[in-house]
């Protein structure tokens, strides 16, 4: 990083820019709009009010323009409907058209004969919001003029109203619109396939001599740092849980290789800035070039918890099988965490979570109490899963500004919540799968097959959290465990996910044709469902020997305390899952020890680990660096480790800023590859 960019980095880390936040977003006034006006009017009125309160800030020496001057969150009241979240605007539309052309399209639509009242409401609202964006950019331009900053003024008079013509303008357009979308309440936004949509601008700048590769890299560095400026306002559960995922690599819509030099430059830039945003995802397949994997490994070595890898050879067929068109599937990106999303949709990829271990535990306790057969027990697991599957068809809140940059909403004159999009599906996480499978495997082996534990003894052990049943617990721990590619635990894991997927497939589609996509992620539930007894899906002691209060693992990973034979056994285990039914995503969470990366061959070997992941037929992978000693020291001496970053689940955060329960879950993970 050059001196100017390092200075912006330091100020960002020190919270310097928060001094510009002078006023609070008037949450009650905003809520009032939603309560007193039709939703289309309210959403536009809310944005107008907020933008009028915002004060343009032009900071000398910076190349991207927008700094929040309002504190707080612009979240519409929940009863107004589900806001847009976990989706990626189609940035290509913004870069192709700019805002003015979208306004022209709206006006043309309004002039069509026999207008539909719903369409008119939507179009008028979209027109007002887009116009307000231009007005607001104009105020920024005026402020730049007043500050004598000619470069900024030139940019802001043009962008985002007109289409950008170079990489700097393109990134400013995205940054400005991204920031304003946050002010509509749209959150967990993604940046999509940046190496694809930005590439023409990059190529143009290099060809015309406007930028060198290094200068393009510096521009990206500054842009990436900007994505960390306001993220204390954007986070959901913890700081860092704010989406901002970026996808690289993979294939084009015609199936050809999409990797280009920007793929590499973005990986290199993320390694240099080393901040929690943007979260880098890398689509891979059997033919992914070695230099890209190597750059990915170098980034992993930096210890930020990304890239997260997606195996195109498994993901795309699953999306197609679910019903997405092939071209849309080939153009997939991820939502905030890992959920695979396509461009032209209003999917809600993380609607709810099913605690698979709880379903298994309920069935096990019933079967022990009522002396049922193992077959009956498995039937009960299916029923218990079915009970947890919600009918997640919420009322959706319109967002005409987002709609203006998504699919064919303007062409169809329909908001994305109301027919503007093409896909309206829902995602449900299936969490605690290894604990579920290990519990069933232990019961099958020790209670039913070997008869070493009597049903009433197991029940008593579980009810007493193994107090006084230490021997029972030790026996349970000897049963086959998920992650070792053993027949019994594999069979139970596959049973669990098939039961989960089948239960979900039984749910009839909603009025919009929305169906549910089962996934394999755990998200925050490894803490919420194990540390908070009031949680409706709280998990007590389980038959794998896990005591109450102990965690379960993050997404797909052997249960805490289980040390698998190794990385290949983990891939072989998870490579056997029925991914064609599990298209919502959820990564294998694999931690590498610091010793692994100290070896001079670490990158070469890492490339082969990624190749093994693809060959094994697994779907998604996080390969993080876990330095337990450092994390323990950071708990004791947080002031010494303020820049220490860890992967928490679908996002990375600064370790010392996390709640202790999340810190502890991470510390309890197994690290491989020493």
């Amino acid at each position, binding site marked *: 990083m050059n001196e100017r960019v390092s200075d912006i980095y330091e100020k960002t880390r020190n919270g310097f820019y928060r001094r510009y936040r002078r006023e609070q977003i008037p949450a009650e006034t905003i809520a009032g709009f939603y309560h007193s006006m039709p939703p289309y009017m309210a959403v536009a009125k809310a944005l107008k009010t907020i933008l009028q309160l915002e004060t343009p800030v032009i900071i000398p020496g910076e190349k991207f323009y927008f700094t929040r001057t309002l504190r707080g969150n612009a979240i519409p009241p929940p009863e107004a409907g589900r806001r847009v979240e976990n989706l990626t605007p189609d940035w290509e539309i913004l870069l192709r058209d700019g805002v003015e052309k979208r306004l022209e399209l709206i006006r043309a639509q309004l002039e069509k004969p026999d207008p539909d009242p719903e369409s008119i409401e939507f179009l008028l609202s979209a027109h007002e919001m887009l116009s307000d964006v231009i007005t607001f950019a104009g105020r920024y331009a005026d402020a730049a003029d007043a500050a004598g900053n000619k470069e900024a003024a030139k940019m802001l008079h043009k962008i985002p109203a007109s289409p950008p013509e170079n990489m700097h303008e393109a990134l400013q357009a995205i940054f400005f619109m991204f920031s304003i979308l946050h002010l509509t309440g749209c959150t967990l936004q993604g940046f999509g396939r940046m190496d694809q949509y930005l590439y023409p601008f990059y190529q143009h700048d290099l060809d015309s001599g406007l930028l060198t590769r290094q200068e393009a890299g510096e521009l990206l560095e500054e842009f990436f740092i900007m994505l960390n400026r306001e993220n204390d306002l954007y986070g959901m559960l913890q700081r860092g849980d704010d989406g901002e995922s970026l996808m690289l690599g993979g294939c084009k819509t015609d199936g050809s290789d999409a990797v280009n030099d920007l793929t590499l430059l973005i990986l290199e830039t993320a390694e240099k800035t080393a901040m929690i945003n943007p979260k880098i995802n890398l689509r891979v397949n059997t033919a992914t070039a070695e230099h890209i994997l190597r750059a990915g490994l170098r980034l992993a070595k930096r210890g930020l918890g990304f890239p997260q890898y997606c195996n195109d050879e498994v993901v795309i067929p699953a999306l197609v099988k679910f019903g997405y068109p092939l071209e849309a599937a080939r153009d997939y990106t991820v939502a905030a965490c890992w959920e695979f999303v396509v461009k032209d949709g209003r999917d809600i990829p993380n609607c709810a979570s099913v605690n698979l271990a709880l379903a298994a535990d309920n069935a096990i306790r019933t079967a022990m109490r009522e002396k049922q057969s193992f077959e009956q027990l498995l039937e009960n697991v299916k029923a218990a899963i079915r009970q947890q599957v919600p009918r997640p068809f919420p009322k959706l809140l319109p967002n005409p500004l987002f709609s203006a940059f998504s699919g064919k909403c303007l062409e169809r004159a329909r908001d994305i919540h109301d027919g503007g999009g093409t896909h309206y599906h829902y995602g449900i996480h299936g969490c605690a799968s290894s604990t579920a499978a290990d519990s069933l495997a232990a019961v099958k082996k020790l209670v039913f097959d070997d008869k070493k534990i009597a049903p009433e003894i197991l029940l008593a052990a579980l009810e007493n959290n193994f107090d006084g049943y230490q021997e029972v617990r030790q026996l349970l721990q000897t049963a086959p465990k998920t992650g070792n590619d053993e027949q019994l635990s594999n069979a139970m894991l596959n049973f669990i996910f098939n039961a989960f997927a089948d239960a979900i497939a039984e749910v009839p589609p909603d009025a919009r044709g929305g169906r549910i996509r089962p996934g394999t992620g755990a998200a925050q539930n490894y803490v919420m469902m194990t540390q908070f007894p009031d949680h409706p899906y709280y998990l007590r002691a389980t038959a794998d020997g896990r005591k109450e209060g102990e965690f379960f693992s993050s997404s797909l990973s052997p249960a805490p305390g289980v040390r698998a034979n*190794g*990385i*290949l056994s983990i*891939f072989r285990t998870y490579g056997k899952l029925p991914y064609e039914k599990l298209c919502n995503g959820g990564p294998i969470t694999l931690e590498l020890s610091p010793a692994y990366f100290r070896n001079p061959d670490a990158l070469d070997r890492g490339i*082969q*680990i990624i*190749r*093994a992941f693809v060959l094994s037929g697994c779907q998604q992978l996080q390969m993080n660096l876990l330095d337990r000693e450092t994390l323990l020291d950071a708990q004791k001496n947080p002031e010494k480790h303020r820049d220490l970053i860890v992967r928490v689940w679908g996002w990375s955060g600064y370790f010392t800023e996390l709640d202790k329960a999340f810190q502890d879950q991470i510390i309890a993970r197994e690290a*491989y590859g020493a």
Partner: protein
Amino acid sequence: MSQGIIFDISEASIHDGPGLRTTVFMKGCPLRCRWCHSPEGQSPEPEMLQLPDGSQRLCGKVYQAEELAQYLRECAALTPEGGITFSGGEVLMQAGFVKDVLSRLPGIHKVVETSGAGKGQDLLDIAGMCDLIYFGLKVIAPADAMNFTGMSSEIILKNLHALDLESQTEYILRIPLIPGAIATEKNFKALMELTFGLKRLRAIEFLRANKLAPAKYTRCRRKFAPEFADCRTGDIPAFFTPEVPFSILD
């Protein structure tokens, strides 16, 4: 079908040959090297390990040849640029089993790591079935070898020469830098002299002493008492200039 006893399997290992290796550690060794960093690999019988948290773990699992071969084939299928490595303990102590498993791994890159302490014919047979041998040479002078490894080096040196003369398989010497025992002036001189007589030696790789060794002895309920030194790594003297390339592995 034969069966064998194994004390560990390491997947995705990065020290045991080209590419990503799955390494099988055979249990049982005729040597008693005082610095041995795998004391749990010495006895050919299963044994209980005492873990630091107070719990115990059974070390030593018996595999049927085909059972192990299938596991290894599945691992190797995921690592086309790597392969399978057999280490120990001492592979030659279970030569029949190792040959049986090797014969079930066609088309897979195979490496065998041995101290050479075993039957010469077994070493030659095994060498003929694999792509590379790591020959773990230690103390060269026979009497010193008896002192430090519990066994004279005569058989080992004889087997090394037989491997050099009679086998087509490439081999690399791997030598731990144990101060006072291996990393001595006397041993380096003997090593240089020895390597001048070897025609097909590809390289020498020195290994740093394993700092974790003492903890592993505690787990085996034994005392780590090498008597001669701590676990520092010895230096390579300036006069050591063999004809083959040498390096220190990290």
